[in-house]
């Protein structure tokens, strides 16, 4: 048990260090690039009154020495204050970003569950029927979608399901002019708009899970305890369910931790093509508009979310692996 606690403490500490480094990088990217940081921190729009710009320079201390700016910045980060959006003034950048985060969580959450569950069963069945048509077919399927640019698959779905056979909406997350409420109509509408984005995101990432599950299970099946289980007279499905699959799960959980970064990258592309109002969509628009406070806030929030998700996957791995807990 002692070793388990130590491993846990270590993981939490590492995540915290990663977070601190992200905070430092966020500072460096926007203040230490060649050129005047004022360009990044203060809107350049000539219609904005000069006094307001001077006020911002004063507030961020952009004329102070770098280390004093850094202290101001750290304080701002811990109060989640990244300044107001350049485009929608009066709106704090953080509020703006959090508004969009909800949709990204819905999209990535749904897709992650789908890709893990379907990928797992595909991998198990392929490994079980190794060398069969299903095995070859699912491998080819996995690799083909793995090689596909996410944004292009999204475009293909628009072509198929909005133009050739118009059944699903390809724009926005809800019917025009409505907001999400807790009633059946609203939720059904949300799911209806979620179908294409979620299926796209699931398809491009499912391959990794299927391939890892298959490989891991094939590895486990060569272990001696499987032979022992078979020799005891257990049926094939008992061996699979109680002896092989639980042990083959560990690499899957490790993969979830690694894949989070890719899933978020995929979500960005899906949101962009389907005009789905998530954080990726907002980030890309912020780049087009040079809305630097929003970009900083988005970068920070995504980093925090991903680090937490990674830590949870790591903790789950420690919890599931008795070798770490007891060893």
């Amino acid at each position: 048990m002692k070793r388990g606690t130590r491993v846990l403490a270590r993981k939490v500490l590492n995540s915290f260090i990663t977070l601190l480094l992200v905070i430092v990088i966020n500072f460096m990217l926007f203040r230490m690039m060649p050129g005047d940081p004022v360009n990044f921190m203060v809107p350049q729009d000539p219609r904005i009154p000069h006094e307001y710009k001077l006020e911002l320079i004063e507030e961020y201390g952009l004329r102070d020495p770098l280390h004093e700016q850094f202290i101001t910045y750290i304080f701002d980060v811990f109060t989640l204050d990244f300044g107001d959006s350049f485009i929608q003034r009066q709106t704090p950048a953080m509020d703006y970003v959090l508004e969009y985060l909800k949709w990204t969580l819905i999209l990535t959450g749904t897709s992650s569950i789908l890709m893990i569950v379907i990928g797992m069963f595909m991998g198990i069945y392929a490994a079980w029927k190794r060398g069969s048509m299903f095995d070859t077919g699912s491998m080819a399927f996995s690799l083909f979608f793995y090689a596909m640019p996410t944004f292009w698959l999204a475009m293909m779905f628009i072509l198929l399901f909005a133009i050739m056979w118009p059944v699903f909406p390809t724009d926005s997350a809800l019917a025009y002019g409505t907001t999400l409420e807790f009633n059946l109509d609203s939720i059904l509408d949300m799911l209806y708009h979620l179908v294409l984005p979620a299926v796209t995101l699931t398809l491009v990432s499912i391959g990794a899970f299927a391939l890892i599950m298959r490989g891991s299970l094939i590895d486990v099946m060569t272990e001696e305890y499987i032979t022992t289980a078979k020799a005891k007279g257990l049926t094939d499905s008992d061996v699979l369910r109680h002896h092989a699959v639980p042990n083959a799960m560990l690499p899957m959980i490790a993969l979830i931790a690694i894949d989070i970064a890719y899933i978020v990258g995929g979500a960005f592309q899906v949101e962009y093509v389907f005009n789905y109002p998530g954080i990726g969509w907002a980030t890309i628009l912020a780049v087009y508009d040079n809305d630097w406070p929003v970009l900083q806030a988005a970068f920070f929030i995504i980093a925090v979310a991903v680090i937490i998700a990674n830590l949870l996957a790591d903790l789950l791995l420690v919890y599931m692996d008795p070798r770490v807990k007891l060893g």
Partner: protein
Amino acid sequence: MIEIGATEGANRHNRHSLASLLSGPTREKLGLLKKKTMMTWAVFRKNKLGMAGLIILIGFLVMAVFAAQIMWILSVIGGWDSAYGPFDRVERVGLGTKPSSEHWLGTDLNGYDLLSRTIYGSRVSLLVGLVATAVSMGLGSAVGLLSGYWGGWKDEVLMRITDVFLVLPWLVLMIVLAAVLPGGPTVGKVILVIGITGWSSTARIVRAQVLSIKERAFVERARAIGAGDIHIVRKHVFPNVFPLVFANSILTIALSILSESTLSFIRLGPRSVDVVTWGNMLEDAVTGDAIINDLYLWVIVPGLCIVFVVLGFTFVGYALDEIFNPKLRRR
């Protein structure tokens, strides 16, 4: 203890290796290398997916190198007025036109021939994929080698930095870098952005390999007879790490090409009047409403090119991984 012996050993070794460069043993070594390469090839040839990938890649390489010649041959076959270049305005600027006998894939909103652009587009895509991979491999190998070899607090610092790049979503990092780095949207900047983003997994792989090799008996033996750090890294660690890095780099090329096309698609890739990439063509297709205007090939063909190039590199990469990774070979 190791530190003291290190410089001395390194000096002694350098003298030795300079001499050996000019003498018989080198030829012997080259012969050995040739034999090893032939053996690898013999195993690789039996891998169906790997060979399929290799053939796809050779096809795209021919397309990139001989783009002008291919267009000329096609112009003779099709009886066109001329072998259209990717920047020859053959139609008036507008919405793009449907495929015709003169322009097999149609033309885009700038009046450029889409077939020509698809063929020439392979050049920048492959170039960015290869050079960006070289950048990230170099960076990742250096960090991994130093980290694994040094150990201690230096290792800790390097690994925490690696973690940041491993954890942060690659696309998010690329978008932010592309947005804040100075300089226009050039090919060089895109290569830099992709290279900086993609090195972390290589660093991890190299470090793990170095850690395991460092403990092996032959390294201990080399140290005991006075070999220095540089000698050990060059003669023992590098040859053992290289095959894995090589297999990994082929897979990284696939990711780099996907990164380039994604960046180009969201208008953060190389953009100027004389650069054409598949990602740019797809972005043009969105701007020109290709899907709504029934110009399907404009969307389908550049996308399929990306899919097949990425598949080619992935197949070859997995095949090599299977050869160099003995744990996988027994399956």
